[in-house]
């Protein structure tokens, strides 16, 4: 049994490397008739399955027949779920207190691999904000500041970018913590991690060392709360505007026209 389990973990770990084609993504990037979402998504598709998280439950629908979606699985996850993210057959669910990891089996059913609490001292602190993952590492922003009207507690100041090693999704562990000002939505593209910090701008980290994001620069003019990247187009979502960038030389950012909402 143990050998089997270890073998499974090995295979899982291998699959991370084998499957890591290039970009992180919330869905099957590449198909041009499906959507790419930011980091606050709570519903996404993988193959012919649709996954939704409500405040407490994770549901799986078979959507092979588009006029007849069929609920095939539903399980209790935890409380105050914030987001759902897919990477390489794993579903990452961020709640206000916990990072949950589910592995999708070959029937499309998610099974819990781990639940990692952000704090070991109870749930008195309820920071907001999502988790994303790529290539064996999960990145979560925790922030207690809330100017967008969400359900965050403000009883305790915490503003951090956490990096978890999830190469073994059954035993994630904290690799590094970076102090931030007000971290919100985030995204990964081309070995770069982009983190929106509201009025404090957008921070760009280098991920050459995936376990320790290294700050490259802060784009102060881009006051964003979430970020979506697809095909070299970077959308940073502000309160009343969407900033657009594309890559220039050496992955520098060229700002395009801002969409005013």
């Amino acid at each position, binding site marked *: 049994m143990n050998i089997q389990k270890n073998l499974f973990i090995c295979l899982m770990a291998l699959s991370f490397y084998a499957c890591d084609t290039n970009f992180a993504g919330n*869905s099957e990037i590449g198909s041009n008739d499906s959507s790419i979402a930011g980091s606050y998504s709570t519903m996404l598709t993988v193959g012919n399955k649709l996954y939704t998280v409500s405040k407490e*439950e994770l549901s799986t629908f078979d959507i092979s027949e588009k006029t007849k*979606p069929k609920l095939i699985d539903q399980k209790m996850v935890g409380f105050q779920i914030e987001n759902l993210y897919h990477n390489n057959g794993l579903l990452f669910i961020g709640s206000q207190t916990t990072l949950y990891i589910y592995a999708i089996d070959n029937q499309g059913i998610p099974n819990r691999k781990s639940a990692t609490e952000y704090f070991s001292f109870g749930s008195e602190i309820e920071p907001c904000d999502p988790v994303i993952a790529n290539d064996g590492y999960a990145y979560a922003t925790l922030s207690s500041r809330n100017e967008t009207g969400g359900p965050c507690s403000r009883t305790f100041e915490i503003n951090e970018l956490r990096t978890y090693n999830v190469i073994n999704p059954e035993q994630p562990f904290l690799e590094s913590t970076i102090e931030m000002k007000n971290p919100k939505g985030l995204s990964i593209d081309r070995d770069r991690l982009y983190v929106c910090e509201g009025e404090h701008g957008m921070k760009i980290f280098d991920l050459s060392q995936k376990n320790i994001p290294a700050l490259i620069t802060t784009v102060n003019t881009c006051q964003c709360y979430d970020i979506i990247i697809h095909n070299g187009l970077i959308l940073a979502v502000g309160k009343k505007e969407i900033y*657009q960038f594309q890559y220039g030389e050496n992955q520098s950012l060229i700002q395009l*026209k801002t*969409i005013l909402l």
Partner: protein
Amino acid sequence: MRLNILILCMSVFVASCIPEEKVVVQGMAPIYGDPDDFSKISFLPTQPSVNRGNILIYKNYILINERLKGIHVYDNTDPTSPVNVGFINIPGNSILTIDKDILFADNTLHLIVIDISDIKQPSYLTHISNHFKSSLIEELFPPNYSGDFECAKGGKGIVLGWEEKTLENPKCFTNN
């Protein structure tokens, strides 16, 4: 949210201690809609953006949710000049994803399946009843607003928005 509930409870408690007296104030009241009416799902001219929700990239479009109302559609074929081309009207909507030209969206209560092969002619296909029932409580206070409001009541339908109204003895208050 926790704070809101606390304030709600406090105000009920305080109210119960005071002899009955009619208090009339200006505040917000919910606008209700019928969760089973899918006939309003349609493509409309551009609509004002008041309360932005999640954003998607889909084909050459940027789709921006307008909380509880639907989806702004921007044609971004040329990112140097994005054009707002219209609005997919889905009363009650705030959650969305698209797979193979099929839009999966909530209307606060149901999960709705909409064919958007032609984005300007969204076509309702089917829905899964009551899938988002457990999330309903999150919609029960007006966004970007501080002050008294009329508590939203289950059974009256889904909350599609909020309007200013003269309220008698409002039991709810928010500081958001």
